[in-house]
């Protein structure tokens, strides 16, 4: 067994192991068994096992003195200092979760980073949605015009002008035509009435219930709303609302003829 002589038993620990196994063996038999056991012992000195990803995450860094890379088991507790404890604890306890030995201070220190994570994600998501909405809105012409109107109305309110001023050129367009159409009709009818009732001079002398009976038949159809209100021209709706003015009721007496407001666009001559 010459090849067994090639394997030198240079490890003192190996020699001790073999001696312990051969304790009860007679010396002659031990001499013949010693090289065989030495060869068996070489199985314990195989190549280092490369740790996998999961196992490597559980191990301490390679440069630690307690790594046992030299093979001396006696160096196992050489690096058990206070500094080593601070480096050793997170490796195990992050994987174990909140173990009983984990200090509460470390748990509290690790929590803010976890809490900020959803907040940061929400901010990023909101910013992305806002940017997309702004881009889509900027591409829409209607949105831009509405936005311009809104800004101008706000500026007008802040500046003291009526809020509806910017929109007057478009909305009250039908109003002048209605008013101008109603006024010529009411003027002749009201002009005929004073001739029929010249004695009723005061407005208070003609109460509202008697109004319809004294109204001329030609103006009967257009008297209902404003006649119930007493036919006060000052309470007529503003021409700014854009509603065509109904013909004025004919009130017996010497009521002044209603005149169109001076501020009507496209007013009467």
């Amino acid at each position, binding site marked *: *067994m010459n*090849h*067994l002589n090639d394997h030198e038993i240079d490890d003192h*620990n190996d020699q001790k*192991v*073999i001696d*312990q*196994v*051969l*304790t*009860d*063996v007679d010396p002659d*038999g031990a001499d*013949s*068994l010693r090289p*065989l*056991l030495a*060869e*068996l*012992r*070489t*199985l*314990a*000195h*195989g*190549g*280092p*096992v*490369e*740790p*996998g990803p*999961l*196992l490597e995450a*559980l*191990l*301490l860094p390679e440069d*630690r003195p*307690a*790594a*046992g*890379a030299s*093979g*001396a*088991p*006696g160096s*196992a*507790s050489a*690096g*058990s200092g206070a500094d*080593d*404890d601070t480096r*050793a*604890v997170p*490796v*195990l306890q992050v994987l174990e979760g909140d173990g009983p*030995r984990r200090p509460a201070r470390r748990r509290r220190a690790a929590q803010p980073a976890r809490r900020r994570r959803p907040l940061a994600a929400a901010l990023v998501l909101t910013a992305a949605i806002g940017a997309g909405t702004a881009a889509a809105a900027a591409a829409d012409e209607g949105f831009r015009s509405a936005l311009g109107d809104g800004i101008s109305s706000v500026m007008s309110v802040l500046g003291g002008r009526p809020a509806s001023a910017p929109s007057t050129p478009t909305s009250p367009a039908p109003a002048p035509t209605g008013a101008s159409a109603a006024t010529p009709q009411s003027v002749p009818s009201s002009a005929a009435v004073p001739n029929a009732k010249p004695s009723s001079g005061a407005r208070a002398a003609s109460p509202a219930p008697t109004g319809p009976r004294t109204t001329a038949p030609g103006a009967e159809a257009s008297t209902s709303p404003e006649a119930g209100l007493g036919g006060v021209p000052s309470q007529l709706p503003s021409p700014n609302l854009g509603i065509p003015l109904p013909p004025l009721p004919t009130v017996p007496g010497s009521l002044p003829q209603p005149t169109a407001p001076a501020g009507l666009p496209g007013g009467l001559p």
Partner: protein
Amino acid sequence: MEPHEDPNPEIPTMDPGDHAELFTTAFRTLSPSVHGYLRARGVDDCEAVTQDVFLSLYSRIGSLRGGLDGAKALVFTIAHSRAVDHHRRRQRTPALVPHEPELDPRATPATTEDLALGTTGALNLLNSLTDDHREVLLLRVVADLSIDQTADIMGRSTGAIKQLQRRALEALRSHAATRELSAS
């Protein structure tokens, strides 16, 4: 009764609370011998099983007592169980593994020199033994476990382990002598 033997008197007692350091030390100190033990037991993919053994050790390291010596006993207990499981599984469902000539005891040597060298390897010597003899020698020599630890792992008494070890050594010597004579 054999006097108490300390299998590794150089190993100091470690702080039981420093599990990370103990686990790292156990892996870097014991993983080669665990790998050799599993290889000698004929386990397929020894490196993967070795890592599985140490992952199992990690899950139990909280209740471990005895420092690195206790970790060694526990590691080889787990490795022994893995080897037993492997052979039971192989008996039920034969697995197809790639052929490795250096691990195949049926290999026919090409030359006389190959014959002389090939039949004297440690694995060949172990393969000539029975399962119990091979196991006790592996646990005592490769794993460097004491009689008591070996008895605990194999589920036998210390006296039975001593007797088994004695017979295993006799069988090993006789097989080695037979092969030496046949080679010459």
